[in-house]
């Protein structure tokens, strides 16, 4: 190793950071349900509501003990909402944790501050973009300020900070492709997709990017959709080629 290897992540006490924050009130509701009362209170409330609904179904207007049950009903609705929100949050958390695990694996592979570019390339290849979560997590793991990560991610052309479309269309505008009509191809693709280079179509299907040379100059002009190369490309074929992708 060139530099002293960093301590493994487990050794360091770090706050459980997940990118989401709860209000105090929400937190206390969560605590109440999870720690003090558990789910039993919710269950009992739900039971009460069941009785209530049965009571309603009998067609009776004035339920007995109406005041207490009314209170219970209100509380139950509140708790159900809170539960729903917690569930949603749980799903979101799970997703983020899944993403962080993958990033962790990538970071562990190098575990070296100097390998930041390599780590970002791997993340870009894996997720097709570099999310805010990824930037924050790398920053935490490698102890690099997020600003430095953004500096790298914006300097190099390879990285994107917005999600890419399902298919990546790259039009080569290297010199050889330029003299053979690359710019016309680019214009036609832009017109067909209705976006400019660097953008994603509104349905999220295609990302359009320019590339400065793919190294197959003998075939110019060239466009690449995902990993399919189309050489000696004719502008008239744009529609035909793009319609192959769904």
């Amino acid at each position, binding site marked *: 190793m060139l530099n002293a290897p960093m301590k493994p992540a487990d050794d360091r006490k770090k706050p459980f950071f997940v990118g989401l924050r709860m209000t105090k009130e929400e937190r206390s509701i969560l605590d109440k349900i999870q720690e003090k009362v558990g789910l039993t209170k919710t269950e009992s409330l739900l039971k009460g509501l069941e009785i209530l609904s049965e009571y309603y179904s009998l067609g009776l207007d004035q339920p007995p003990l109406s005041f207490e049950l009314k209170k219970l009903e209100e509380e139950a609705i509140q708790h159900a909402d809170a539960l729903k929100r917690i569930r949603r949050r749980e799903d979101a958390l799970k997703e983020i944790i899944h993403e962080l695990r993958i990033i962790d694996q990538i970071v562990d592979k190098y575990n070296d501050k100097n390998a*930041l*570019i390599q780590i970002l390339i791997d993340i870009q290849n894996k997720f097709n973009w570099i999310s805010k979560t990824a930037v924050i997590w790398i920053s935490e793991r490698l102890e690099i300020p997020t600003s*430095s990560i953004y500096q790298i991610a914006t300097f*190099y052309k390879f990285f994107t900070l917005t999600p890419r479309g399902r298919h990546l269309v790259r039009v080569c505008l290297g*010199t050889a492709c330029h*003299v*053979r009509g690359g710019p016309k191809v680019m214009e036609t693709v832009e017109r067909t997709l209705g976006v400019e280079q660097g953008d994603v179509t509104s349905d999220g299907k295609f990302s359009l990017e320019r590339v*400065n040379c793919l190294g197959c100059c003998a075939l110019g002009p060239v466009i690449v959709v995902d990993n399919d190369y189309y050489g000696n490309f004719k502008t008239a074929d744009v529609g035909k080629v793009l319609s192959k992708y769904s």
Partner: protein
Amino acid sequence: MVEKLKSASELTNLRERIIANRDPSKSVVSICIGTGCTALGAKKVVEVLGEEIKSKNLEERVKVKQTGCLGFCEVGPRVIVYPEEISYFKVKPEDVPEIVSQTIMKKDVVKRLLYVDHGTGETATTLEDVPFYKHQQRILLEKNAKIDPKDIEDYITLGGYDALPKALFQMTPQQVVELVKKSNLRGRGGGGFPTGRKWETTRNAPGEPKYVIANCDEGDPGAFMDRSIVEGNPHSIIEGLIIGAYAIGAHEGFIYVREEYPLAVENVNIALGQAQEHGLLGENILGSGFNFTIRVHRGAGAFVSGESSALISAIEGTVGEPKPKYVHAAIKGLWGKPTCLNNVKTWAYVPLIILNGVDWFRSIGTKNSSGTAIFSLVGKVNNTGLVEVPMGITLRNLIYKIGGGIKDGKKFKAVQTGGPSGGFIPEQYLDTPVDFDELTKVGSMMGSGGMIVMDEDTCIVDVTRYYANFLSDESCGKCVPCREGLKQIVGILNRICAGSGREEDLKTLDDLSELLRDASLCALGSTAANPLTTSSLYFKDEYEEHIRNKRCPSKVCRDLIAYYIKPESCQACLICLRNCPVKAIAGEKSIVHVIDQEKCIKCGMCIEVCPFDAIEKLSPAVPPTASYGIKVTPKKRR
């Protein structure tokens, strides 16, 4: 599990064993799966070939080998059948059964798949007969055709890793440096700095550890020779790096490859793994006591990162911006330690020089530039691809003998060498010999070896604008002359191309070029004006036409041209009308079509689809007034 080689004799034994195990009469079908041929469908050919061989039960007699780039990408996918060396071009999957039944089983040649010369109509059976190869001298690229880059044994059988023990056991590091110095090898990245001197400086510089780096950050648009070597023959670079590291006293090396070249990254990683397994890398190489490891660093796409100090920053994990070079990387480079950075081609020459000797290398090329040069000959020539020629060959021979002349019989206008940092060379300098010094004399440079040929249909002003735009985009923004100067140049060139150029613009451009040349921090800025300087020197009339007459002689600049349907040629076939994306063409059956100039966006689609060549481009953009309703003059459809 492969056994680690512990001495030079074990390597020789291994080579002999591999050769003995290979049956020389066995047919080998090698298919190029470089990026170019893959784009043309080579993978499918490989697949069909495998099935065909299986179905005919020929597995014992035929070996299919997937090789790297052979250079002549335009006529891919390429298939060569050994030992006869029959070379087939433009092979499609449906041709495979014929190749198997005729060539492999009966040893007959499938005539229709051979190369046919554009001019003479002659066919060529082997590579040497093809004019594109006949005039080349391929010393770096020749092995690409015979090597499966994913198999170290192929490289070893062809004498690979033979130079390594010679350097390690028969020479001292000092002697290796002296040998490279004497060979007159100059850096192939474009600068042409004497490699031996760079090695010596690094060797003598104080500070440990020392590093060696192979630069394959080929960001130069229009060049792909580095890619094809890393893809096709990665071991030659590795061997060169090990020898260089031994000479310099480095124990760690890097290969910097662009992530845009996924196949190159893959192949070099496989090659490193195999070299390690065989004990050619790592601890105690071949029992010599010398330790050396190599890591791959992938570049994330920034043209400026090819510059040495920027590349070093990129390996350090920071933004790849150039630094002032008061002190050279050879003395203070990677992490402030002495670092020797060379292009991959330079490293790949080293084993050849060690094996064949200084005299052999100096016998190729000119007095001051020894060896061969590799160009990617692209643009408007008949034969496009990678060419390796001895230094000193004239541009005319390169373009006309190897390149087969200009496409479609058009007229030659200029050749641009050295990528965005090079210059345009007009016809009167076509007899200039190609080497480091001569190209600089005419205002261009060797550069990394891109050679883009332009014909009469290429607008020089437009291409100059393209380069300025590219460089302005790629400029890191650290120094003012480059950041702001290029922006102004782009602005002025845009203006000229749009037809609102001013008389004083040429003078302003000259001033800006001078500023860029003198005041920029790194080579990106100081050479950025080369295309501009040479184009305004050799093609001043084109600039003046744009500025004074609002006319683009090559009919490229959009604001200065108009599309016009010739009434006498139009057959009213409705094809252009249907294809026009903005519905700017009016017409009906048997009525000559007319373009509405107001609506026309000048996309050129109509010219492309017209089967009668009835549409022409006019410049300046004042088409004759067309009246609607003219009857068609019937003509026989072609």
